[in-house]
């Protein structure tokens, strides 16, 4: 399952539509990190609204993704984590430290706009 990556002005939006394998996640990470440099991107939004589970590999990949993108000069925000997913992640100790999160796509865009 390939995650579509949409470009919107200076931002990239990756909306995950279904459960991803570990390989899909790594592919998403690499594609985003590559495009950030190629397209002069300032912010990346990863929308996980439709995911009903976020395991340790997914959390770590998202964190790596955000840190790699940060090193390439853009910000990342994760949006749309479901309440049950959030609490399950916290109980597993996966708190995505230092990675900005927002309620939904709209909030994510507002967040990125406020940090210009």
């Amino acid at each position, binding site marked *: 399952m390939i995650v579509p990556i949409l470009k919107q002005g200076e931002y990239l939006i990756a909306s995950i539509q279904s459960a991803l394998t570990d390989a899909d996640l790594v592919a998403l990470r690499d594609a985003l990190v590559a495009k950030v440099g190629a397209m002069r991107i300032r912010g990346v939004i990863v929308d996980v609204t439709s995911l009903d589970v976020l395991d340790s590999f997914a959390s770590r990949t998202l964190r790596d993704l955000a840190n790699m993108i940060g090193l390439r000069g853009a910000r990342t925000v*994760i*949006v749309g*984590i*479901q*309440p*049950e*997913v*959030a*609490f399950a*992640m*916290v*109980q597993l100790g996966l*708190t*995505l430290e230092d990675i900005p*999160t*927002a*309620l*939904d796509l709209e*909030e994510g865009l507002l967040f990125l706009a406020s940090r210009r």
Partner: protein
Amino acid sequence: MREKEAQAVPRRSDETVTTLLSELVAHLRETRTVLRQEWAQRITTARLLTAMTEEELFSEATAVYDQYVEALETGTFEALQAYARNLSERIIPRGVETDEVVGIVLLLRDVLARSLFAKYQTDFAKLNRILDAYEPAANRIANTVAVGFVQERERIIREQQEAIRELSTPVLQVRERLLILPIIGVIDPQRARQLTEQLLHGIRATRGKVVVIDLTGVAAMDSSIANHLVQTVEASRLLGATVIVTGLSPAIAQTLVNIGVDLGKMNTVGDLQGGIEEAERLLGYRVAQIAALEEAESRAAG
């Protein structure tokens, strides 16, 4: 010899439990007024059902008496059971206790048994057979009424617990995107779970951006609940909301320090007012008195 047996057999089958009971029922119907009166009087003497007036007591006593006799006659307990439930529903809110209900049913059983003694005192064998028929039925009736009462009570208690649980963790919106969660009283693991659930869903439903959790009304919490609180704060952050915790008591502060909470992650303010002010600042609100604003404006103009 043979004749005797032939005589004895029909006599015994004549007096099956059913016929004995119907004889009994006829007797109870006949003496209804007297026995009912006596029963009501004994209830008053025993100081049972003091929450009810004498008239109420008498009308209930009449209804129970008739249901009782009917249950004896038909051997079915559904009507009595329904009546017991209905009665319980009416009298439980008035503070009637289980022992009072059991007490009055046992009193009725005794009153009726005494009247049987009086009626059959000359025929001891017959009295025995009548009692054989009466006692199991009477015990079942007493049992049915008592169980009905207790079940009704438990149903009410369950309903109330449910209501209290739901009311115990309100998530309130005070401004656009600002939620407060006042917590009062002891937090047990179940309440903590419910609190988290309601808060996270509240954040989603109202698009909350800042949440103030006020713990002024919580004296202390153990470390597992404190951990849960920290997890709730972190989970809220994953949803994109900022949590401000206010009104931490010294005991809770100590618990949080003991479990080694990362204070960089916990946004705490002394009291609820301070918490709401901080939340307003985060949301970009500025709250001022109109008079002060006007004064500042006129000073700027002048």
